[in-house]
């Protein structure tokens, strides 16, 4: 993002976590409230990125292993004669998904709770910042008028 820009910039989705990274703009006259908001958002972004990258990697890996083991049990190879990747049908995959979800249930719940908490704090802080900015603008207008 260009140096003279006064806004945050959002980028393309990350390869592993599928989340879009944000580069935050630090205004020169940042109030403590705004600083808190920015730091909370940065922290949340880092946490989300860590969680989802790890989660997606684990998911893909386990999915590959599962497909491989199932195909071996059936006596097939990973790729058949035409070179296409052999896949299992939805019912067999459903077993895998259920297994994955039950194994990671506690982790998912914990992340869920954290995510909601962070989301609400960030939105609440954004509201406070917006209110503070509006009041500042009104005061400035009154001074100039």
């Amino acid at each position: 993002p260009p140096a003279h820009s006064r806004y945050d910039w959002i980028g393309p989705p990350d390869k592993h976590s599928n989340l879009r990274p944000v580069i935050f703009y630090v205004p020169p006259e940042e109030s403590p409230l705004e600083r808190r908001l920015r730091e909370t958002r940065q922290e949340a972004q880092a946490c989300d990125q860590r969680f989802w990258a790890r989660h997606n990697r684990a998911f893909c890996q386990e999915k590959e292993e599962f497909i491989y083991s199932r195909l071996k049990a059936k006596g097939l190879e990973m790729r058949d004669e035409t070179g296409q990747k052999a896949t299992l049908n939805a019912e067999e995959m459903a077993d895998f998904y259920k297994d994955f979800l039950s194994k990671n249930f506690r982790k998912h719940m914990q992340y869920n709770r954290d995510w909601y908490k962070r989301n609400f704090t960030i939105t609440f802080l954004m509201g406070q910042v917006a209110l503070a900015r509006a009041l500042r603008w009104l005061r400035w207008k009154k001074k100039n008028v």
Partner: protein
Amino acid sequence: MSAARCCSPPRALAGLFVWRLKSTGVWQIPCQFVQLCHTANDRLITFQYFNFLRRMYVTQCNKDLSQRAKPKSNSVASPFRELQQLEQEKKVIHKIRPVSPVHLPLSEASMSNELREMKSVAQTEDSVAAVRAEAKGDRQWKEMKLQLDDLPGILARLSKIKLTALVVSTASAGFAMAPVPFDLTCFLLASLGTGLASCAANSINQFFEVPFDSNMNRTKNRPLVRGQISPLLAVCFAASCGVPGITLLTLGVNPLTGALGAFNIFLYTCCYTPMKRMSIANTWVGAVVGAIPPVMGWTAATGSLDAG
């Protein structure tokens, strides 16, 4: 006047030429193109690049071309002439080019046909190119600034307006089924209230589900996931839709419908959305959420929940 004669046969080929290039991807022609590019004007350059990878360029300049193609300006005519000449040998090109300004007024009739052909080619390629440009633009860094002219589209996607329309139609079906004489104001108020409540519920749902949505192909183009809108704006929009919607239902129709609407919003945002992460029983909750709008239509008409 040999130039005029030799330009008319490739007239039909001019359209084909572009297709052939696209389909076969002939890469030795680039050097010829590049030579011409340096001598020609801006529009020629972009048109030549047409067949290569500069698709962002293409969408903009294609619009340019198709806009300018209508008034038959000279600047548009010359690229087509140059393009035809490529069919022939390079020597011919060098001979024709000095003569081309003379031939422009003479062959305007043929030009118009070529223009039409080019335009149709350009339009079809435009749509393909637009899709690719969109995919390419998606991979760039974007400013997180609120674009006011995109705002209606963004809000429509935030509130899932097509789904809302379907919900309103189910509510109006419930209203129509009620065994009472049809009251237009009541019907309109009930539909509007239901629509606003649905918009609010959908916005809150999207607000809650940002990281989960970004992982799925179906939902990764939502406004909050893409950063086109801030979460605060989403919440404000939801509040500004929900509160008037529910008050409209309570005061304009009857309190029972308003209560049902509020209950439905609560059920969707606070029960269905978190439950999605926890168990599969949320599907039944979702079914109840879907079934309440017709009941709301019924209570709006009759004012109570007893059966007919």
